[in-house]
């Protein structure tokens, strides 16, 4: 059995302490907030106040505990191979791919959504041939003249050599592991690629 990490409801008391600066104490669940599906079922346009509040347990004085149990069996981990398993790039043929959806061929460009970054707003422009990314650059950037963002402005963004795997991958709603600036870059790039159907 795997080891469980449990933070007890002593935490709810702590959080209620912080929140009581402003309002009556609100009890909170720990860990997963849980699904919001089903809350606010009055249909389109109804005010948010019709949603039922989250259900919780009241705070207790039980100190935090952890339960520790050794795992009985060990599952196999997935690992990478040291070399890429991606298939080699195909020819430069412009014939449509053998799928039911057709992809426009020829050289096309699009600019992604304007996204906020720390110093202002930016958007990313991408040029593709078919599904292959040819170039990526900052399409628009407003920075209030901040010197760090000049760096981004002049930065030469390397041509993406790999097949646009990430671009063809699923859409993301957020990015982890990036400072605020580069996350914005990635999201604008994704929106430009989505416009091109890549």
């Amino acid at each position, binding site marked *: 059995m795997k080891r469980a990490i449990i933070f007890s409801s002593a935490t709810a008391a702590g959080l209620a302490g*912080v929140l009581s600066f402003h309002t009556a104490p609100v009890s*909170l669940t720990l860990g997963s907030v849980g699904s919001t599906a089903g809350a606010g079922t009055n249909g389109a346009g109804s005010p948010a106040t019709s949603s039922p509040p989250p259900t919780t347990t009241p705070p207790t004085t039980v100190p935090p505990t952890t339960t520790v149990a050794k795992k009985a069996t060990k599952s196999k981990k997935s690992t990478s191979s040291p070399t890429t398993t991606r298939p080699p790039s195909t020819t430069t043929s412009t014939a449509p791919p053998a799928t039911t959806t057709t992809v426009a061929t020829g050289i096309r460009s699009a600019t992604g959504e304007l996204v906020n970054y720390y110093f202002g707003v930016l958007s990313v422009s991408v040029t593709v041939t078919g599904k292959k990314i040819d170039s990526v650059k900052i399409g628009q950037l407003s920075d209030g003249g901040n010197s760090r963002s000049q760096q981004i402005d002049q930065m030469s963004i390397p041509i993406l050599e790999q097949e646009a795997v990430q671009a063809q991958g699923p859409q993301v709603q957020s990015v982890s592991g990036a400072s605020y600036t580069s996350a914005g870059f990635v999201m604008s790039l994704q929106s430009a690629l989505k416009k091109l159907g890549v």
Partner: protein
Amino acid sequence: MRHHEEEVMGTIVTFDLFDDRGFHDPAVEDAFASAADFLHQVDEVFSLWKSESPLSRWRRGEIDLIDAPGEIAEVLERCRVAVEASGGWFDPWSAPGGVDPTGYVKGWAAQGALRRLARLGTRGAIVNAAGDVAVTGSPSGTDPFQVGIVNPFHTSSLACVVRVRDAIATSGDYERGPHLFNPFTGDFTTQYASATVCGPDLGFADAMATALVVGGDPVMELIEDLEGYEALGIRRNRTWEITPDFEVASEVAL
């Protein structure tokens, strides 16, 4: 969808709400304000950049823990759990200069802000605090959120996309250079290029991601043993490893 940005904790924290229904603007603004206020309150208590914050004063011995806001003791207790679970590879007490729970607090605060947003009752919501991401619900109503993980070797692209049901945190020194303290070597060396942990508690995921990037393979083994927490570790030689239930939605490509 509604978006809000709050400058706090030395970074910009973003809130995103997902719903097709029209929510009255005052209700949305109230929810954003409530979540933002919480972050500022946490910053006032925990910021080590503020010399008069309760945490700073306690570290200097000016106040006892029992006289400080209760959140400090609570966070320190949670950090102790993380120290033990990480085999000591995450250790706020080893930081030069005194105990520094910052690695836990950011995620803990982001998830607390998310709870405030969740009261609005939208189909889905995200809080992103400089890469520590907490989510609730679903963007579409059916599918889970999908979060991109930055490629540490090429930071304008993604290493992979992962399905996230509660929280995800990524750690690495590829942006800021060596800054993650290694409690066993006493310097700032890290074994992995980057490490990502998903699980129910964002503060804990943040702490474990830090431990994983600093300690590498031994920490991967520890995380495998934890219920509800999954991880991706990317080594400097471009090999990678995931725990069995890490929900990749795309190939890992580095």
